[in-house]
């Protein structure tokens, strides 16, 4: 284990947001927890995430980190996310107009997974918005996260409203504590965590530092995120680290996170969809319904918000014009093994996610009826194409190859049999798979 003592000198917080070395032409930033995460990173491999150093893995086995999350708990540094603090008397009215999901249904102390659309009803981005617990009734503040910068997009839509939007990305650190043991361990520091509901938000203190705790995460497991001022980062890390010792908790990196989120059916910008803002054509755009977020709009009829993209969304619902349906895909293990066996290869079961389009075809002999129709799908879809997979992996928890996939709506019924195209020995092979609902891994404890 790394020694903490020797690092104390260099640990001194350099003030909120000043994690970049002043006076140096540093090209990357480090998170408020970097002094600790760097000491834990045995492989010293880092990737760049929004210009921050982010660990892909901390130890030689990303799979060990993954299992720690599913069986005990893991700590993930998600500080590089973009974060916006949105306040002012009209904050709620503003968000009701720019976010597609109804923010009125998100009282203080609650969070929402949400998205924002363009006028044509295509998704600009997704993120989690926390409605921060009110310190005083007059204070109404939100914290919105996103993967990419969105300040201009939001600021341009403020109009006459009295709203303040501050980007606080560099001023805050975020730690995710995820996994079955997270509740009991976090409750040692923030007792309210014990009863905090799924997507609840509470204020607390860790090591004397004020923190916000939300029951959110990107792993599809029971889990929490801790939001802290950058200057308090190390203090909070140390308290948390001490609290989890002896419980099999491990820090985990982006590689394990990617596995976890695919099992959890959580989409990633740039992997499973793109922002409509920078797409050159509609093939690279998605509507929220096409991304499987129809559940966000269950009560559209009862809310009269004029939000960006509403008319297009309503038209899509009414006209059933969605081009795709977002689904999970589970490969037929026998067929998969057979394809490799016949090639004289050992069937690979690699947990490392493969990101990128893989084609799906109708199963000529497939069940489900829809396949027989052979109908043309949405724009530009070839005859016989059933859809495409975007994130593919072997899931150790499910003991199957799985994928996140977009299906032609007529082939999206769970159980529908399709063929996934794989490359074996430098040529294409088709492996049987069936369509399933997302998430493919969904433990009760996630929401319990």
């Amino acid at each position, binding site marked *: 284990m790394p020694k903490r003592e020797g690092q104390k000198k260099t640990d001194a917080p350099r003030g909120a947001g000043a994690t970049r070395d002043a006076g140096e032409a540093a090209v990357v930033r480090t998170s408020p927890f970097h002094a600790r995460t760097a000491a834990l990173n045995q492989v010293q491999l880092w990737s760049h995430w929004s210009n921050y150093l982010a660990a892909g893995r901390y130890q030689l086995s990303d799979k*060990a980190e993954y299992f720690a999350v599913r069986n005990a708990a893991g700590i993930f540094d998600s500080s590089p996310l973009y974060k916006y603090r949105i306040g002012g008397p009209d904050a709620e009215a503003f968000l009701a107009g720019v976010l597609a999901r109804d923010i009125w249904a998100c009282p203080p102390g609650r969070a929402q997974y949400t998205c924002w659309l363009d006028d044509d009803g295509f998704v600009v981005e997704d993120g989690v918005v926390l409605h921060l617990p009110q310190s005083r009734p007059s204070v109404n503040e939100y914290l919105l996260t996103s993967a990419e910068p969105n300040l201009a997009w939001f600021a341009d839509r403020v109009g006459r409203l009295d709203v303040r939007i501050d980007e606080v990305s560099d001023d805050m650190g975020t730690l995710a504590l995820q996994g079955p043991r997270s509740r009991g361990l976090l409750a040692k520091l923030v007792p309210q965590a014990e009863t905090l509901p799924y997507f609840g938000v509470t204020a607390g203190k860790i090591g004397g530092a004020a923190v916000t705790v939300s029951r959110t995460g990107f792993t599809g497991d029971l889990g929490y995120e801790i939001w802290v001022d950058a200057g308090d980062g190390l203090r909070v890390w140390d308290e948390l680290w001490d609290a989890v010792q002896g419980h099999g908790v491990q820090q985990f990196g982006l590689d394990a996170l990617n596995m976890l989120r695919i099992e959890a059916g959580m989409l990633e910008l740039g992997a499973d969809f793109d922002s409509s803002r920078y797409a050159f054509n509609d093939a690279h755009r998605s509507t929220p319904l096409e991304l499987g977020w129809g559940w966000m709009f269950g009560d559209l009829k009862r809310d009269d918000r004029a939000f960006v993209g509403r008319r297009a969304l309503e038209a899509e619902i009414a006209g059933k014009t969605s081009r795709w349906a977002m689904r999970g895909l589970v490969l037929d293990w026998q067929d998969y093994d057979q394809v490799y066996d016949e090639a004289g290869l050992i069937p690979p079961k690699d947990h490392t996610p493969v990101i990128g389009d893989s084609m799906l075809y109708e199963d000529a002999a497939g069940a489900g009826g829809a396949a027989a129709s052979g109908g043309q799908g949405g724009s530009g879809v070839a005859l016989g194409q059933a859809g495409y997979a975007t994130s593919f992996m072997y899931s150790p928890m499910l003991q199957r190859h799985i994928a996140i996939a977009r299906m032609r709506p007529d082939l999206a019924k769970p159980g529908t049999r399709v063929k996934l195209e794989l490359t074996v020995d430098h040529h294409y092979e088709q492996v049987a798979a069936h369509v399933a609902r997302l998430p493919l891994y969904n433990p009760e404890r996630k929401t319990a």
Partner: protein
Amino acid sequence: MSTKKTPAKAAKKRGAPASTSLASAKASRAERTYDAIVVGGGHNGLVNGAYLAKAGLRTLILERRHLVGGAAITEELRPGFWFTTFSYALSLLRPQIVQDLELVKHGFMPLLMSSTFAPMENGDYLWLTQDHGQNLKEIARHSKRDADAYEQYGHDLSKVVQALKPLFDQAPPDLFSDDPEELLALTQLGRRFRSLDKRTLHNAVRLLTGSAADFLDDYFESEILKGYLASSSIIGTKVGPRSQGSGLVLLFHAMGEHDGEFGAWSFHKGGNGGFTQVLARAAQAFGAEIRLESPVAAVITKNGRATGVALTDGTEFYADTVVSALDPRHTFLELVDPRELPDDLVETVQRYRFQGTSSKVNFALDGLPRFPALPGREDVFRGFTNIGPSIDYLERAFDEGKYGWYSSRPYIDGAIQSTIDPDMAPPGRHVMSCFIQYTPYKLRESDWDAEQENLGDTVQRTLESFFPGFGDLVLQREVVTPLHIERTVGLSEGNIFAGEFFAPQMFFFRPAPGWSQYRTPIDGYYQCGSGTHPGGCVMGAPGKLAAERILKDRGKGRG
């Protein structure tokens, strides 16, 4: 799983209780009538019962003890400390079983054993991890030459494993039958071997018949690497790494597959007891009924056909299919009357070699051991700790075993399982499972009741020599000798594979020539334990293949 009573005594005919009317006696007989009865709720019995139930048979699994699992159980011997009393890791489990029995739905969770730490007697070590590049450099620290030899070895072994793997998933053809189906299967087997390249076929034969030491010497010069690799050539078997036949044991263990990686191991959540609980839930979900504390005294036969079983308390259950998940000695010599069987079979089973030679010593620890060369490093314990630093060390340990005593410096396959699954021990505390060899079932001029704690001391002393201060960490110790394995689990002479792995007891000949296809000479009486093909380890293949045979036979009978 079974009892020591002779069938003749226990199977005494009993009528229905005198007080019940004929009608209720009939009703109660109907209630106690099943399509299939599995004797023994070890992992193969559970797999077999689950497959039979899945196929729609009304299936009863009878377990002698208060819990299922046989030798694959996890017990809380000290509050908060869970011990994998016997079997302690998972590797050879056939992946098809996970899928067919929908085990994921019932909690199947194979946690990764991510490394092997092999301390050396000079204070150095070999630490192999999930990182390929790191492994090669780590090996090069001991021998630069061995780094790429390790690659070649891995590749060659994988080729052999790939070639032989299908044999694990099908019953051996019957060498002694004229049935065209069997002849065809035999031809296909021949063709499979013909299709192998020369090197792979030759390697296969060298492994199947030769010694692990010879095979390893062709690749490596580093003692620690050879010691580590040779360790899997002795597990559960009374051979040393230099004995002919140890190659087969090495190959068998390399056949294991974890998430597609040959030779990789996992630790099931909650230990192998956690795994057998998953199996039990799966079997029950398919409709199988499991009765605990129901020791079977005998299989009831009538006119050369099995018709049911009798428990030691006299209760009878009826079925025209009875499956023994016990080892061949129990299956053929105790559950049925040997007089009902052909002499040559009885003779073969009497000669069948068990001679258990492995023990377990399990520890509850107050903290993680310390290895002087790596102070403060805890991650080296997130996998196996292999105490077998050279082929000489292993062979010397075997020397003592050969002459009827336990090794004064035994081979130890340790695993601090709480580092992988924190639910196994209270926070900051640990459980350590240690597989020990050699500890022969028959001790020269002594017995295991007398030597049990001395063995515990020997093991602890050995660990102390590699991890100074180890003894201070010990909160509790459990010593499980071959005798205790036999008494508790019922495995004859404590053999963990229900019969040794050596060529005359494998494939065509497991457990006996002509009886390798799960049938027995008694119609409707089948065998599905690890004493049948392919053999022991928590693999499930015998249970699965036996179920396939039973279902096929029943189909024929009906047709």
